[in-house]
């Protein structure tokens, strides 16, 4: 019964996403693309934040690294898009950064972990900001070409085509992440979240489980970075900045920590609000702060659980 409801829910969401471009003006199709990209990003954070209980204020490091790697290959080396190479390099580089960070930070927990991840990710931001020759410094790197699939009559410069391209990747990524959190491995992550000492006493190398989760999370965040950099056609240090890490953290909390699909909804809401509000005022962060406070006070369990409770009544 419960499974059937979820299946119907997923089918409806997919159907809506599938037909959306036929009803939406091009601007909103673009916005929806952005929402999907951040949905992948937020879900990837939820693997460590919600399922493993590792809070992070440095998740932008993985998104940003992948974005920069793709951008540098695209603009500086290939002077055009080699999609297969760039996708692989982008996603792997994010995984490698996660593997390196993981070695350094995963001995810590709680607030300490949060802060040390913040510091580590800001170091990468510093590199992107200062290393002008490669990263373009604070000007960033413009002119990133999207993949070229015109041979099969797909023109990714077209908003609608790029939307479906991102939709495809998002669905695959969401399905894979769902598999991970539902897997035996995902099960051990829940155990770690609930009681690390008990897991150790039971014989788990808790560090190793966390380390794998961290890398998996980084890889999916990297995928979001790859999709984002083609979407924007531009990369700048802000992709690596604390503000990006904080935004995705709020997406996860707003959507519902540890629900996987909740953070996707949170990503949608935040992206939407950000776009509208930033049209009126540059003080977007104030609104974000207010939204965050409202979430914590009114729906600390997140909108996804709120929605589920509502459905059950």
């Amino acid at each position, binding site marked *: 019964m419960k499974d059937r409801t979820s299946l119907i829910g997923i089918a409806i969401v997919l159907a809506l996403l599938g037909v959306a471009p036929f009803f939406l003006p091009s601007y909103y199709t673009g916005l929806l693309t952005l929402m999907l990209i951040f949905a992948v990003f937020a879900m990837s954070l939820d693997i460590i934040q919600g399922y493993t209980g590792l809070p992070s204020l440095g998740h932008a490091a993985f998104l940003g690294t992948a974005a920069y790697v793709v951008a540098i290959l695209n603009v500086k080396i290939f002077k055009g898009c080699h999609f297969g190479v760039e996708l692989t390099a982008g996603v792997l580089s994010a995984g490698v950064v996660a593997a390196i960070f993981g070695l350094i930070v995963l001995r810590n927990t709680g607030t300490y972990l949060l802060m040390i991840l913040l510091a580590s990710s800001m170091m990468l931001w510093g590199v992107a900001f200062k290393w002008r020759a490669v990263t373009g410094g604070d000007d960033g790197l413009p002119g990133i070409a999207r993949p070229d699939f015109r041979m099969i009559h797909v023109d990714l410069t077209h908003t609608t085509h790029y939307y479906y391209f991102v939709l495809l990747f998002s669905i695959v990524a969401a399905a894979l992440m769902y*598999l*991970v959190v*539902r*897997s*035996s*491995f*995902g*099960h*051990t992550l*829940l*155990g770690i979240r*609930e*009681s690390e*000492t*008990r*897991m*150790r*006493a*039971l*014989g*788990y*190398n*808790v560090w190793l*489980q966390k380390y*794998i989760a961290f890398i*998996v999370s980084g890889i999916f965040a990297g995928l979001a970075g790859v999709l984002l950099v083609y979407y924007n056609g531009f990369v700048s240090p802000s992709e690596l900045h604390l503000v990006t890490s904080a935004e995705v953290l709020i997406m996860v909390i707003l959507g519902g920590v540890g629900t996987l699909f909740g953070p996707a909804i949170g990503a949608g809401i935040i992206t939407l609000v950000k776009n509208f509000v930033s049209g009126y005022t540059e003080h977007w962060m104030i609104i974000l702060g207010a939204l965050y406070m409202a979430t914590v006070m009114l729906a600390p369990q997140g909108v996804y659980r709120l929605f589920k409770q509502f459905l059950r009544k």
Partner: protein
Amino acid sequence: MLAVNNLTKDFGGVRAVDDVSFSVEPGERLAIIGPNGAGKTTLFQLLSGMLTPTKGKIFAFGHDITRLSAHRRAALGIGRTFQITNLFLTLTVLDNVLLALEASGSTRFNLVSPVSSHKHLLARAEEILSQWGLWDRRDVPVTSLSYGEQRQLEILLALSQNRSLLLLDEPTCGLSPEEAKSFTSMIASFSRDFTVLLIDHDMDVTFGIAEKVMVLHFGRVIAFGSPDEVKQNAQVQEIYMGASE
């Protein structure tokens, strides 16, 4: 089975465990008693690898495990329970047992198939939960269990793993006398394949289970022997039981 040589643990200036040596034979039941702050739980933390000793050595199953991490000791065959209930609270009873079972074996690295697809784990979980009367409660989150059931699950997690050396840290802590009694018979009924080290304040529990008793006082061993010997020990009566007479 287990041999502890001159084990010492300092916390800053406080010596919690002071030059403790003892050994345990396979299948034996040893109770560790002593007033609050005697170093009993610290000793368990040292044996299970949650803490590393300041001095001394620990040997188990013929290995020097003094510096071994907690999970490696568990893999060698040391299981433990906690004085303060330490379970996966938001997960169900079944999930708790499954996590215990998954600790050995490769499924813990399986990123694709769910726990429920591993039939041998489910079968083993059903077996152990049925045996101890918790199968009907399998889908209940641990937070919703009664305290007594939580304490029972606390032991079951360690027991289900078939670790040959079990460290039970006050298994009857906070239970009613009736519950404590049923726990005593439960532990006493453990197969002799298990070697049991037990901390408990309850003398009925201790003397109902143990064949040997070790008395700790301010981190030192002040008596070691059969329950009767320990009961007769003048020093023990004076510092430990004296208060109640």
